[in-house]
């Protein structure tokens, strides 16, 4: 996020796009509700009638995969009405002319045609967003998980820049990161192209710096492969050993059948986890790790806040913290490491990672101890430090790009709408979109082992519109068969008008009915994110259909 959780509610208008906040990030959802209660304006752009769409001032119910068309349509109207912030554009950005030309080549009517959102609503949303003092954008994987994910993000950034809504409290471009430490894993170099702090692995200066700090000569000086590319390289025999620490690609990755084939083929697979996951089935060696409740360390949240994780329990007998396991393996492979614990590691991180230079355990622990009962949410700076925090005298950065973008000027990119990979056909007449639900989490490794959560939602639910259910003879609560070009699964039917006719939705948390058996593997050429949000599918009733099909559920979604 360019901004902080605490300033979300300070926006006058919020555009929430591709984020089911109250389910996927429920405590940030509280802040969206707070904004509503304070009389601010909420615009939700989502193919589903999610909880916040029902509460919003305006719901733009776009077709899945048409984000760029919607955003460009909004920007066209902003330019037509002269609502752009020329002062900001001239002083803080570049490449505006090319961007302007590309926007002027589209029309609001075209956007309406592509997205299915009435032109009047697109115009209204544009005016609301562009004419208030502070507008922010919250987005999540409903923007990124497309083969055009990068373009979608650029279009979001364009909208924010063309109206000057960045660099102040209550504004910004705010992606909500899905997992507890996905931000930190990226910051720490858990990516193929960067060391910690986003220092490029093919930059000679960065290579020299790391070689000196680590006391090694780096063998590989080129960008590595992403998960999806790894799976293909396994097929080609190029990658022969895979080491998986706390991930479950069988459930989380698209096109499950292909991942299964790749993991069966790989010469040697090591999986390290807290439970025997679906991925462990394919392992040559399984190593038992301990949970975060048994570890010391730090996590970095979606607003770049680095926070202390503290051990409440000793590691379960037989298990070890992941860092210790990695060190044991490194020693076996000839490294001479003698780290005593995570704090030693943080000291090393401080030295080689500019953004984390001043983030020490001493400061983080001291801050937690200062907490008073009177800290209110706006002033919540009682815990952690937000990077960039280059040195020990720096108090962290709640708002990015204030006064200056990190690259200097903000760059406008001309982006055009591209269709999703799959469209409906006679054989696959419906669209499946996937995502998260409130009660379960990611591949279910933790949440499916929590009895309090399984008691609430024991199984995979497929959201089906009542009209479709009636036409197909499907009754609420019954098992159904859902098939794409890649496979078939049997979730149970949840008949609800949250989805429009022709669209079905299901979360990917459930191994019994894994949504990713059906999803598309084609990925964005730049970010390498797969198109998990659009797949063409066929839905069928089992047992030949039901007489009282189509009746909606009386229960709320949880």
């Amino acid at each position: 996020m360019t901004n902080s959780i605490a300033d979300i509610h300070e926006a006058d208008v919020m555009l929430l796009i591709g984020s089911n906040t109250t389910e996927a990030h429920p405590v940030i959802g509280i802040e969206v509700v707070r904004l509503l209660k304070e009389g601010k304006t909420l615009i939700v752009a989502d193919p589903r009638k999610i909880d916040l769409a029902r509460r919003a001032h305006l719901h733009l119910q776009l077709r899945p995969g048409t984000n760029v068309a919607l955003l460009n349509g909004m920007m066209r109207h902003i330019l037509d009405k002269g609502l752009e912030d020329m002062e900001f554009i001239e002083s803080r950005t570049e490449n505006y002319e090319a961007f302007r030309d590309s926007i002027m080549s589209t029309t609001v009517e075209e956007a309406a045609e592509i997205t299915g959102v009435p032109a009047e609503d697109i115009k209204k949303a544009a005016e609301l967003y562009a004419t208030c003092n502070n507008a922010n954008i919250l987005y999540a994987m409903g923007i990124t998980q497309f083969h055009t994910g990068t373009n979608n993000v650029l279009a979001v950034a364009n909208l924010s820049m063309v109206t000057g809504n960045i660099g102040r409290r209550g504004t910004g471009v705010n992606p909500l990161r899905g997992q507890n430490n996905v931000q930190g894993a990226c910051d720490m170099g858990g990516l193929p192209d960067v060391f910690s702090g986003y220092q490029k692995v093919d930059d000679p200066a960065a290579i020299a710096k790391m070689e000196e700090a680590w006391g090694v000569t780096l063998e590989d000086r080129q960008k590595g492969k992403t998960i999806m590319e790894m799976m293909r390289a396994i097929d080609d025999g190029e990658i022969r050993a895979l080491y998986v620490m706390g991930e479950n690609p069988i459930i989380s990755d698209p096109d499950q059948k292909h991942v299964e084939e790749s993991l069966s083929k790989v010469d040697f697979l090591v999986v390290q986890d807290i439970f025997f996951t679906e991925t462990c089935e394919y392992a040559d060696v399984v190593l038992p790790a301990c949970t975060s409740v048994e570890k010391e360390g730090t996590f970095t949240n979606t607003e770049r806040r680095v926070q202390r994780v503290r051990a409440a329990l000793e590691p379960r007998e037989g298990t070890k913290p992941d860092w210790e396991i990695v060190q044991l393996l490194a020693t076996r492979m000839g490294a001479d490491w003698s780290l005593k614990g995570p704090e030693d590691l943080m000291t090393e991180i401080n030295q080689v990672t500019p953004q984390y230079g001043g983030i020490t355990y001493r400061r983080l622990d001291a801050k937690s101890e200062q907490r008073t009962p009177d800290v209110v949410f706006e002033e919540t700076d009682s815990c952690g430090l937000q990077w960039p925090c280059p040195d020990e005298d720096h108090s962290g950065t709640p708002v990015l790009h204030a006064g200056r973008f990190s690259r200097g000027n903000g760059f406008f990119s001309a982006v055009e709408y591209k269709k999703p990979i799959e469209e409906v056909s006679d054989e696959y007449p419906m669209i499946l979109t996937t995502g998260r639900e409130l009660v379960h989490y990611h591949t279910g490794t933790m949440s499916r082992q929590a009895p309090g959560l399984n008691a609430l939602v024991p199984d995979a639910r497929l959201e089906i519109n009542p009209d479709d259910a009636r036409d197909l003879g499907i009754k609420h609560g019954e098992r159904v068969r859902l098939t794409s070009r890649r496979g078939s699964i049997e979730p149970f039917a949840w008949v609800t008008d949250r989805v429009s006719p022709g669209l079905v939705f299901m979360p990917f948390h459930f191994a019994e009915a894994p949504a990713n058996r059906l999803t598309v593997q084609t990925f964005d050429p730049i970010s390498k994110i797969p198109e998990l949000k659009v797949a063409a599918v066929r839905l069928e009733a089992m047992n030949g259909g039901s007489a009282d099909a189509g009746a909606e559920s009386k229960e709320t979604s949880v």
Partner: protein
Amino acid sequence: MAVAPETGERTLTLTVDGQEVKAAPGDTILTVCRRMGIDIPTLCYDERMEPYGGCRMCLVEVEGARGPVPACAAVIGDGMSVTTMSDKIFKLRKFVIELLLSNHPLDCPVCEAAGDCRLQDYAWEYDVNMTPWGWHPKDFETRDDHPNVARNPNRCINCGRCVRICRDVMGIGCWGFTNRGYETIIDTPYNLPLEQVGCVSCGQCVSACPVGALTHKRSRHDARIWQTDKTDTVCPYCGVGCEFTVQTFRDRLVRVTTEPGQGVNNGNLCVKGRFGMEFVNSPDRLTTPMVRNEDGNLVPTTWDVALDRIEQNFKRIKEEAGGKAFAGLASAKCTNEENYLFQKFMRGVIGTNNVDHCARL
């Protein structure tokens, strides 16, 4: 009155228990007193919500006022003089507790909230005469069918914190007051099951309840609050990064709690954070390394054997095909330190930049 030189904002001056103090316009007597370290008892007050002024435990004396005022709701004025404790205030607060006890079950020995109950604490602190006006315990029956939230309406003191947190913070409104007077009960609309009234199972109502009316159902007989160790840490579910307190007893996680003001979440949590941490205790946890044997089955083994197996195979593949034949998946669930070390291992020891994790998934 004064003006802060750095911000130009007006500050007000008041006297609390003879001590002069400066505060900002809009501050309440309670927040000023808490900053000064003066303890004022509250039942219905919760920092996450607007003051309610219902329980009358926070009554204080203000010079010139016609009667005692509730410190939680009273906004300060310039030149105000406040007395937080006197014989009169002590008696008033004691009276409030005695009234509340007159229809309270007095079942502290079997109450899940014992040791974590404001009513119990204040009854002791104000040395109450228990039930000088007779004892007429309530005898309500209600649904108690939520898997995580235990309900006991007879212990309810009608402070309304559950009603308000669900309505004002969550924007839902599962709870409301039903009936009047002694018959007042907090219930769902038409006594419907929680799952039919929009409940998202966040347990915010449990976190707000100052007594034993709404409690954690699943940890009921695990450990008393005074037996547990408490550790502040960060939730391992989504990317919001909520801080919570893990209560443990011996080698088990008992429950997760928060306090208003805690973390970026300000003491708020969702269903996963509050009720989803029991996986830590699961008997199905991996507790021993496993290796694939000659028959192709994974069998339990020792750490040494497992690490030997990895060493042999890693060295073999490295020799045959070099570092680029390796790939590693770091983890969005592991700590920063572990992810840093993992990429250092893959790049610096194994010799490959094939490092990724499920950032896109």
